[in-house]
């Protein structure tokens, strides 16, 4: 094997605009599925928490979807959404996000203690206000825990898309492998992990902002 440094900084400098483009592509392909997934998971999770008989089969279906390998789903989708398009990567990632988020919403809502719900009713909250002002805020920690797992794995999974020609930073892995050149691979790994860490950190901060009572209780 050739003696070669793990990272060649001049390569990074010369290729930074391209890397930046891949980074943007990566962020879009990882985060759009999470946002869409959350928007779908909230109403479905609400329905699942209200009608438990509906929830059981949903979990079964979601478990099956979650167990489908991403590469396999990308490939099966190619005839429908096209080779190397963003949609081919984002559609399966949305389903993975749903598989994590729907149970998280349902668990979050069922974690609301009964006496809290009854107090809200007794105080004259309408069902909608009770949901928005009492139940959803209490569900936030559990939902956000799911959101963190979904976001981090989504960011990591996008790179598999490189095998079908659209993987954001994952392209750097293919590039480095084909040229037997470490630097792009290292850059790709570092950026993916940094991106996931940043997203995770933002979600933790969001949780602190959304659940001020948890901090107050911790301080007391």
């Amino acid at each position: 094997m050739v003696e070669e440094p793990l990272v060649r900084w001049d390569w990074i400098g010369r290729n930074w605009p391209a890397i930046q483009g891949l980074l943007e592509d990566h962020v879009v392909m990882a985060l759009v599925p999470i946002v869409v997934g959350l928007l779908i998971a909230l109403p479905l999770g609400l329905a699942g928490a209200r009608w438990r008989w509906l929830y059981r089969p949903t979990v079964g279906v979601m478990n099956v979807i979650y167990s489908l390998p991403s590469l396999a789903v990308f490939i099966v989708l190619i005839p429908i959404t096209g080779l190397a398009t963003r949609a081919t990567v984002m559609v399966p990632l949305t389903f993975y996000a749903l598989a994590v988020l729907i149970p998280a919403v349902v668990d979050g809502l069922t974690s609301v203690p009964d006496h809290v719900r009854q107090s809200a009713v007794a105080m004259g909250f309408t069902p909608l206000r009770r949901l928005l002002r009492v139940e959803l805020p209490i569900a936030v920690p559990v939902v956000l825990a799911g959101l963190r797992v979904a976001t981090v794995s989504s960011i990591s999974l996008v790179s598999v898309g490189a095998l079908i020609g659209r993987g954001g930073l994952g392209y750097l892995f293919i590039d480095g492998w084909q040229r037997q050149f470490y630097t792009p691979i290292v850059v790709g790994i570092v950026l993916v992990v940094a991106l996931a860490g940043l997203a995770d950190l933002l979600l933790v901060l969001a949780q602190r902002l959304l659940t001020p009572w948890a901090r107050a209780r911790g301080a007391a």
Partner: protein
Amino acid sequence: MNWLIDFFGDLANWSGPEGIPARLLEHLEFAGLSLLLAMLIALPLGLWIGHTGRGALLVVLSANAARALPTLGLLVLIVLLMGVGTIVPVLIPLVALAVPPILVNTYEGIRGVDPDLRDAAYGMGLRGGQVLGRVLVPVALPLILLGLRLAAIQVVATATVAAYVGLGGLGRYIIDGLATKNYPSTIGGAVLVALLALIVQLGFDLVQRIAVSPGVSRRQDIR
């Protein structure tokens, strides 16, 4: 559908070193070995941390970071560094993939056991190790099994990328099919991997039904 018939109907795909049985065995070898290694690392560590409460924050944080590691990137880097003489380069990223879910769920499972239950066990005269083995692990078993299931499914699914660096397994059909524009092979391989993941999922459902105590799974009415 025609592609599937082309692939699965071709008798040449069913025998020899490139046949489906041989590829399936290779796939199971990568996945099984990685899962075994990950269990050897993550189960004792998770039990110990959950039981003693030591180092919990560090472990949860690093497990979350490890979740973010892109398997494909790790794999190509390790293979470039080590070469493909053995299957070790494939095992490292797969183990890294499997450890976090097992570790976090084992830890959460043990930690989440009702403290009253734990106290009751000590009160009945059980010692530390006995409390862990006879009370905490059985009660935490659903979560521990969940972690193992998630890890197993991810490893089975991700072992496909081994083919990208020239190793065997079911991923060969996918990667070779993509490279040669042989769509039946690609789709056939994808379906095989998905089926395998589903079988793993069903297998764990079964294990859960058998191994989890009826009292814990609420299959028996407890007052």
